[in-house]
């Protein structure tokens, strides 16, 4: 393990030199953890996540992390992450599909507990029949939890988003957990080029006293004077306290937006902003959307891409602005329910332009041709159906 020197957050994320490596998404996530000055990680195996937490285990063995263990299962993992974060250390864990759902009661309470933490979500089918392939329906379950949710298109995004996630999560005006999601296998087990910051630089350690809600360490007074426990005393007070607290959680979620601009170049990326037809996509589907835009360009069609990087906070204004003159918005997704499509339709006034899909699920790949078909339909281009025998 090289000696790592602490550098300023802004320097590491924005200015530090970068070196290009050809690595998997799982490696990219672990490489970010390596540079994030993480104190403790807790792991529980599930395909396709395991690779990430194996690599993080190796980091622990090499001395990058101070503590690491394999927990009893995901509910125990997510609960222990909460305990460790409340005691003031920087924590990381990752899971997939069924593991996420098993841990979700605990995860959904992290924002309310004001826990900075980073959670890797390497997507996998949930529900029956069994498949271990990369369907991303599980992200729908995170949308209402208050957690910040970033969705990575490729290995580079995984690295950038994971490293930035640690910084964003601990900002005093944010101070809620950040999930970095990407499609299992397609990204986690495939290689791509990643521009990485130097191995011998890391983020400053967590300062547990730079916090809107105090840590529980018996060094500083606890969050509230415990003997005044109004939640127990009247239902009205319990409604009120829950309500204002959750308002603040969601306001914190919104306040993360400025850091998403600062460190990740904003919550969306627009390719060909003057297009007539847009593919609107997140995660791996954005990569296929990007290909569709390239095909369309070759065919002389005016098609653009709106890639959504931040699902929570959802970039309502940015998406509205990007789609205000669009004639059609095609939303390809890796899940049956179309959670992104619903988000976009709810955000824009001209929701009639949205085409729901194409959608693939069960972990299938998303052929660019499926997106092209929708583009042709939107542009009124008749296609000959070729039957290959």
């Amino acid at each position, binding site marked *: 393990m090289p000696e790592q020197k602490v550098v300023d957050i802004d320097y590491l994320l924005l200015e530090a030199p970068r070196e290009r490596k050809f690595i998997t998404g799982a490696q990219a996530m672990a490489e970010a953890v390596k540079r994030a000055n993480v*104190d*403790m990680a*807790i792991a529980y195996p599930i395909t396709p996540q395991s690779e990430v937490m194996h690599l993080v285990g190796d980091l622990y063995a090499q001395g990058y992390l*101070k*503590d690491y*263990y394999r*927990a*009893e*299962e995901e*509910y*125990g*993992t997510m*609960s*222990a*992450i*909460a*305990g*460790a*974060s*409340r*005691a*003031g*250390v920087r*924590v990381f864990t990752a899971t997939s599909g069924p593991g996420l759902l098993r841990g979700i*009661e*605990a995860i959904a*309470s992290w924002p309310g*507990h004001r826990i900075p933490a980073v959670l890797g979500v390497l997507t996998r089918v949930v529900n029956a029949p069994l498949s271990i392939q990369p369907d991303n329906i599980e992200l729908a379950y995170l949308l209402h939890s208050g957690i910040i949710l970033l969705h990575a298109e490729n290995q580079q995004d995984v690295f950038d988003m994971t490293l930035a996630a640690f910084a964003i999560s601990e900002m005093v005006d944010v101070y809620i957990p950040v999930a970095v999601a990407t499609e299992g296998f397609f990204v986690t087990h495939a290689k791509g080029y990643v521009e990485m910051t130097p191995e011998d630089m890391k983020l400053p350690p967590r300062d*547990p006293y730079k916090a809107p809600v105090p840590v*529980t*360490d*018996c*060094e*500083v*007074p*606890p969050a509230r*004077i*415990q*003997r005044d*426990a109004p*939640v*127990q*005393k009247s239902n009205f007070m319990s409604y009120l306290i829950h309500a204002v607290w959750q308002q603040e959680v969601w306001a914190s979620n919104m306040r993360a937006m400025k850091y998403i601009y600062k460190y990740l170049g904003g919550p969306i990326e627009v390719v060909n902003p003057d297009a007539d037809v847009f593919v609107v996509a997140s995660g791996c589907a954005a990569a296929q959307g990007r290909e569709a835009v390239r095909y369309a360009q070759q065919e002389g069609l005016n098609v653009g891409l709106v890639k959504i990087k931040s699902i929570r906070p959802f970039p309502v204004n940015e998406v509205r602005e990007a789609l205000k003159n669009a004639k059609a918005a095609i939303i390809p997704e890796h899940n049956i329910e179309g959670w992104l499509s619903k988000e976009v339709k709810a955000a824009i006034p001209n929701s009639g332009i949205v085409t729901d899909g194409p959608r693939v699920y069960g972990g299938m790949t998303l052929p660019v041709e499926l997106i092209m078909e929708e583009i042709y339909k939107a542009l009124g281009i008749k296609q000959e159906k070729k039957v290959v025998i």
Partner: protein
Amino acid sequence: MGLRYLQPAPGFKEYLPKDYVDLIDFGPFGKTDQLDATKLGQFKEIVEEHPMCAGCFMAYFVRVFYASLPNPEDTIVLGTAGCARLALSQAAVPFIYGNYGDTNAVASGLTRALKLRFPDKTKDVVAIAGDGGLMDIGFSMTMHSWFRKEKFTTIMVDNEVYGNTGGQESGMSPKGVQLKMAPKGKKFDKIPATELAKQAGCVYVAKLAPTNVKRMAKVIRRAILAAREFGPTFIHAYTSCNIEYSIPTEEVLKDAREREKKDFGFEEYMTDEVRQYLEEIEKKEKANK
């Protein structure tokens, strides 16, 4: 240092609520060598007001528990859904409530993190939860925290029922008892919690009915001291639910004594190194007194 965060800043004391100032002046913080559970009623207690049922023996246990902490200013208590939480959350010691049954997982993360941040300081962590919380919904987290040898204390306040949700059967309810969700009576025996604890690697295990304050205080103290140095410790306390088992308030102590004779006789197990360690500490304390 725990005491420092409790002490009002100079000039600030006169503006603080009387309840808080009394706690600092007449409470057990920094004075546990003089004030202990046997002197209940003679000092300002860490928990006073709470909404548990009148005459509830679990509430009494919680009161004794706080009066028995060896180091209340450096103690963090974890609780969960269940009756005890109603009083635990009103105490003047930091309290963490996560989700039902998660105490031993949260405490695992918390204890390890505190060790990382304060390797040379003593910070006591105690998870105190119901029979349902520890032996049903949280069973695997309870057991695995013990297997992993996590250094904190687990206390089960066993009222043999889901009290907080209105009287359903738990794994710790006695066989044959008719409760909600066991309309024809419970079909299996009480889970052998203390045996499991010993098998799983707890270094100190005690079982008691709360009939003897002095002994309760000693056991709680011992469990916490042993957890600091050696590994997980466990106390299984019978704390009757007078509501769900229809025990008249004036008879809760009588009931506890009966159960003590029947199936809650005092048991204490500890490893040899714990015994040696505790003997040394207790000898020194006696000499100091």
